[in-house]
């Protein structure tokens, strides 16, 4: 089955999200709050990078040079949402984003798991297995923290900051409009309600009417934080384009 441009746009947006989420999570290597978490969070980051590779292959076909595609593309070709471009240097923010993102990610993979395209279906089914664990990990950490005064305050602050960015994730962008639902599932925007219900269940009812995407949010436009993460992940390849690692 050949994917059309709108379907590829849906998958590219997802791939770029996964790639940057993985890159941002890896920033906690060596500095997570405790050793066991350090390893677990980095391992989850690797899973997300693995999902990005699988999605980039679907977008570009199996002969795609993944490194060239992932690291060499012009910044104007990126379609990530701004949530994954955020630095989140506070652990509370990183943890809350982990939960918000993975809950959305779960719904996105579920939508793809019913695809008429068997390659898409296979990637989704594999990813769902990993996501089941990712979500359990995020919930277990939050369960341990909820009820502690300082934790509740910091989680609340992180939610205030991140929810507008998180709802913006559900805009797949103009290029994705009209994508075949039998291939990529329902439009991303339709997943926002089930996601909100999950957020309400986890953190208590939120005032959704006042949660608006940040002004100017557009997957075709890079946020102010993109260059920093993009430069960092290109550090090696910028020094030596032929380097292998």
């Amino acid at each position, binding site marked *: 089955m050949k994917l059309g441009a709108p379907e590829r746009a849906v998958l590219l947006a997802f791939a770029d999200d996964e790639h940057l989420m993985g890159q941002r999570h890896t920033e906690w290597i060596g500095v997570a709050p405790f050793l066991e978490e350090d390893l*677990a969070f980095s391992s989850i980051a690797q899973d997300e990078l693995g999902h990005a590779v699988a999605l980039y292959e679907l977008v570009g076909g199996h002969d795609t040079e993944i490194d060239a595609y992932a690291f060499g593309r012009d910044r104007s070709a990126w379609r990530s949402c701004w949530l994954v471009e955020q630095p989140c240097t506070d652990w509370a923010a990183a943890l809350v984003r982990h939960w918000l993102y993975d809950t959305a990610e779960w719904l996105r993979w579920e939508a793809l798991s019913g695809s008429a395209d068997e390659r898409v279906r296979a990637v989704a089914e594999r990813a769902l297995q990993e996501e089941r664990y990712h979500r359990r990990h995020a919930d*277990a950490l939050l*369960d341990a923290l909820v009820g502690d005064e300082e934790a509740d305050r910091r989680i609340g602050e992180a939610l205030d900051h991140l929810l507008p960015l998180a709802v913006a994730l559900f805009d797949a962008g103009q290029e994705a409009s009209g994508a075949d639902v039998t291939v990529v599932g329902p439009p991303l925007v339709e997943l926002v309600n089930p996601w909100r219900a999950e957020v309400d269940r986890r953190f208590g009812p939120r005032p959704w009417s006042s949660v608006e995407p940040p002004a100017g949010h557009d997957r075709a436009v890079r946020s102010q934080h993109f260059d920093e993460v993009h430069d960092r992940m290109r550090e090696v390849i910028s020094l030596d384009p032929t380097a292998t690692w």
Partner: protein
Amino acid sequence: MRTYEVFLKREGKDEFRHAGSLDAATPELALVLARENYARRAEGRLMWVVDRADILTADESFLAPNVDRPHRHNDGALVAARRRAQRESS
């Protein structure tokens, strides 16, 4: 934080073996962190995670009287010799 001991069992007839330990704030966290810290490369097909405080332990003084019991270390040589002698005489 509590300390947990992690045991893994490979596919097949191997028994559960001690894989290591970790600190975790809750039992659920112990389980999810044990998965990443000790089983992320498919080192086991089944996993036990046990709160160290729940393990019954015996110290040296409890086990010491068993150290000096040479008569319990039977290598079977004596029995083998008697069987051989019986075979030869019959």
